[in-house]
């Protein structure tokens, strides 16, 4: 394989990695409610079934062009419109789709409706309509109960007693890490021991790595010196290659001074000679003035 092919492959790989980081493949069907009796009301004042889509990535994902369906045999049943700005989902944010069969109400209303009190299938496909992003088989649900992830986008789906449309399924009002440290490490001893151990481990690993690299480097230099005939034996070459930098600097300086001391020809001559010049173009103001236009 020539270098050009490797470069092209690398470039393609980089593009693919960047694209994957913000691709619709990060979308998840987070929560579904099929029987809406006293739950969320859409902007038209209706209560319908809804599907919550969650962006599980740390980058914004565009879901326009993706397909959502309730029929496994027809993946392209409803395309999410490309003309709506709200189809961009922020990192770890959600968007609601109303599965009410009223597509004329806009992008976020599908052309199919979910059946209350029965099992339903929902599939989310990418813009090709061939690659499945996520699917869910929703069991028959009691009114105003939803089915989804208890931790957004993660783990197993379950029936949720308290639906949370357009909000995270799991709410954290505290920082559990900080609370844990407040409770279990009030004097900071555990933190100090753990963190200092990690700092030492990191630098000890580096220490060993560079001890080995240093030894290998000295040995390789010695081998090169022997090959070049500069030294007779490896041990002699090693002692030469481990000459401290200060000694090398002193030797270099001595050689430089020695060479500079023997001059046959000087490249430049410096003299001190007084020159009297009353006018100099450098001090003339005439050149700094704008010229008067010539009359013709």
């Amino acid at each position, binding site marked *: 394989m020539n270098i050009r092919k490797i470069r092209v492959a690398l470039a393609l790989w980089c593009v693919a990695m960047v694209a994957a980081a913000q691709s619709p493949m990060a979308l998840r069907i987070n929560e579904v409610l099929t029987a809406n009796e006293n739950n969320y009301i859409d902007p038209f004042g209706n209560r319908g079934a809804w599907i919550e889509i969650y962006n599980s990535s740390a980058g914004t994902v565009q879901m326009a062009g993706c397909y959502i369906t309730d029929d496994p045999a027809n993946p392209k049943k409803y395309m999410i419109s490309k003309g709506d700005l709200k189809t961009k989902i922020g990192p770890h944010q959600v968007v609601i789709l109303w599965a009410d069969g009223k597509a004329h109400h806009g992008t976020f209303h599908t052309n199919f409706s979910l059946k209350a009190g029965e099992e339903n299938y929902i599939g989310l496909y990418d813009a090709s309509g061939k690659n499945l992003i996520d699917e869910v088989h929703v069991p028959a649900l009691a009114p105003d109960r939803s089915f989804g992830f208890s931790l957004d986008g993660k783990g197993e789906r379950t029936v949720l007693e308290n639906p949370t449309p357009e909000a995270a399924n799991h709410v954290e009002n505290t920082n559990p890490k900080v609370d844990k440290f407040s409770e279990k490490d009030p004097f900071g001893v555990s933190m100090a021991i753990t963190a200092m151990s990690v700092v030492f481990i990191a630098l000890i690993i580096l*220490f060993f790595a560079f001890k080995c690299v240093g030894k290998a480097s000295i040995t390789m230099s010695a081998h090169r010196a022997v090959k070049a005939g500069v030294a007779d034996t490896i041990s002699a070459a090693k002692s030469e290659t481990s000459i*401290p930098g200060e000694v090398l600097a002193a030797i270099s300086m001595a050689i430089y001074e020695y060479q500079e001391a023997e001059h046959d020809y000087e490249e430049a001559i410096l003299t001190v000679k007084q020159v009297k010049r009353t006018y100099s173009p450098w001090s003339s103001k005439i050149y700094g003035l704008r010229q008067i236009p010539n009359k013709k």
Partner: protein
Amino acid sequence: MGEFFSFLGENINEFLTYTGFANVAVGNLVMIFFGCVFIYLAVAKEFEPMLLIPIGFGILIGNIPFKDAGLQLGIYEENSVLNILYQGVVQGWYPPLIFLGIGAMTDFSALISNPKLMLVGAAAQFGIFGAYAIALAMGFDPSQAGAVAIIGGADGPTAIFLSSKLAPNLMGAIAISAYSYMALVPVIQPPIMRLLTNKKERLIRMRPPRAVSQTEKIIFPIVGLLLTCFLVPSGLPLLGMLFFGNLLKESGVTRRLAETARGPLIDVITILLGVTVGASTQASQFLTANSIKIFVLGAVSFVIATAAGVLFVKFFNLFLRKDNKINPLIGNAGVSAVPDSARISQVLGLEYDPSNYLLMHAMGPNVAGVIGSAVAAGILLGFLG
């Protein structure tokens, strides 16, 4: 005519309500005084002038009083010019760029030739965790304590980066404290170094570092990044940029990029960082009991870090051969105030033996301290973020 003069008078009165004189508070004057002190220290004493001039002048900018009339003037008013520049601090993207420049200007040869000096850099991080324990005892919650404690790493960009993540409301005080004590390193460290060493130890001559090949210098940033960031991924923004900058320098084929990183880029970011951090010290936000506590903790953490570095070298010497001992005067350089703390080792070393040059040896723990404090910041961020 009378109506005209009355209108004119009203206008002038209205104008006067907008002036700084009408809106000044005692806090503003106090902060302006501190700003002038910073500028004085930078100009007259040459204490970290590259930092103290922008910060000092930033304090003046941030403490010009004005009427809150929605004119988008102050640093805390959304979309004001200062607020836009301040986003680099708030979002934490100035510090990694500074680290890129530091990497491009740092020569790790001293460390590569004598890797055991890395451990001295690790030991000095005790300052961070000593300060963390004291901060908890003073009533800070763990995330605030972590943000304050990082001052002990003696690394301004790291302190700003971590405080922007863990305790954004304390960032101004933490940044000012970190940079102030970094400037005061020549005052803080020598007495501790003298106190903890005896004459015999101060006269220890270390073996000169060996010459390091370019291959080793190229391997260092790559292996350094992989080993440290696999262990502490949360240190990636700082360590990634530090080692990347160093690879630009050492690869030998990206001279222009390295020169940009260590020249114009770091200069621009230093100016923006300094002036916006200074301007963030508006008296109303800055003059609080917490700021005073942070300044006290900053001093304590520097003392602990210096002492830990020196004592660790003495302890380490117990296990080293007689001809391979380390001069404990380089222990202070484990705090990452590059290169000031290394320069102090040199000055103190020469004071006791005019032919004992410690600078190159001290640069080892000094740059290891940069790595160590970035790793420590990553750990704190991982645990408390």
